[in-house]
């Protein structure tokens, strides 16, 4: 790699560090492991930067390297084995047009939403984080996860339904508990 390429790499990659670290923390659930994952991601991408084709999405490329690094790590393999869920296994929850749910979602605090995200299976968690937190387009998510756009859309819809259901159920239970007191 030339010095110029190296400089270019740093210019493109360093602004992504915070987002990559955050994503790595979510994936691994461990800040120390997340640090190692980010460092390994930077090393791998730096080595491969000369083969990186201009015009392709650099952010999606970096996130893909991070995700693949995680999936091949011990935690990644364990998590895949223990928490993988059948993509077709969830019943579709009809989106309600009722407003009480909207009111409940508005009342949800950050901690509750974080718990709702944390309980998602990895394939749903990563897609909802990339879409809503990183604000990636569907195409970019598809490149990152190496899946078709249709899969991104269906996983995202299911992930959101589960987050929504978790929040609504938790707040309704809290309300019921409050009424009984």
């Amino acid at each position, binding site marked *: 790699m030339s010095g110029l390429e190296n400089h270019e790499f740093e210019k493109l990659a*360093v602004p992504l560090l915070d987002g990559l670290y955050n994503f790595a923390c979510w994936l691994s659930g461990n800040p120390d492991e997340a640090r190692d994952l980010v460092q390994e991601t930077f090393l791998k991408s730096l080595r491969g930067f000369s083969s990186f084709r201009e015009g392709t999405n650099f952010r999606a490329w970096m996130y893909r390297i991070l995700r693949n690094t995680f999936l091949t790590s011990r935690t990644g393999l364990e998590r895949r084995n223990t928490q993988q869920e059948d993509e077709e296994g969830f019943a579709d929850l009809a989106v309600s047009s009722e407003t009480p749910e909207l009111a409940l979602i508005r009342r949800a605090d950050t901690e509750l939403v*974080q718990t709702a995200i944390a309980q998602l299976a990895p394939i749903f968690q990563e897609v909802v984080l990339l879409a809503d937190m990183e604000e990636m387009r569907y195409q970019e998510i598809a490149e990152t996860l190496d899946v078709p756009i249709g899969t991104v859309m269906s996983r995202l819809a299911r992930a959101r339904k589960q987050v929504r259901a978790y929040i609504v159920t938790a707040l309704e239970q809290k309300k019921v508990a409050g009424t009984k007191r």
Partner: protein
Amino acid sequence: MICDWREKTGLYVDGELEPASQQAFITHLESCDGCAAAVLEQQELKKAVRIAGKRFTAPPELYAQVRMQTHAAKTKALRPWWTWGFAAATLVLLVALSAVLIRNNRPDPTIAGLVDQHITTLASAHPVDIISEDRHTVKPWFEGKLPFTFSLPELKGTPYTLEGGKVAYIEQSPGAELLYDIGQHKTTVFIFKASGAEPKTSSNSTFTIKSWREGALQFYMITDASDYESSRLVSMLQEANR
């Protein structure tokens, strides 16, 4: 019965509908309370996930470690064949000039050592031994540990924050290492007893490096903040030690 348009709410909220469909969906929303409520709900949910998802912030030492990795790779970088030819051709000229140039331009080993110390501090889990933003706590901590005294400026109302300090050494001589924040930039200020010729400093592509003397004290500043951002802190340190 659920409206046929309802399944498009996610696409609409994510801005993934084609322009024509987007317009048609907006028109539909004006007459369908159910879809309008679903859109509102999805927007709220998206916002909540965006806020809650940003849960972890990369520690400053990770930035330092990643930058070190990148720079280490730079020094090992392979160069194309023609640059070796060019290098060989210019070698003779460089050798002829080196006796003069090396004497004048070689990076000061003290500065190189302090840059390494700055990076080590940023990568450390315990960057300072005395943790305090209060200069009246940090300065007395050095008493008895250093063969000189110094003053620290009041930072109230400035963009600078003192994080703390520890004792550092160059050539077995103790000095003060003070860690400051300039916005998001970590900045190390070293203070030693002045001796010999004033060191030659030159900023590199990663750090802004400054050195100056104030009386019997030799100051060094190493930061990845810009020259402009750090210059006021230099002036304040100079003023405090006049």
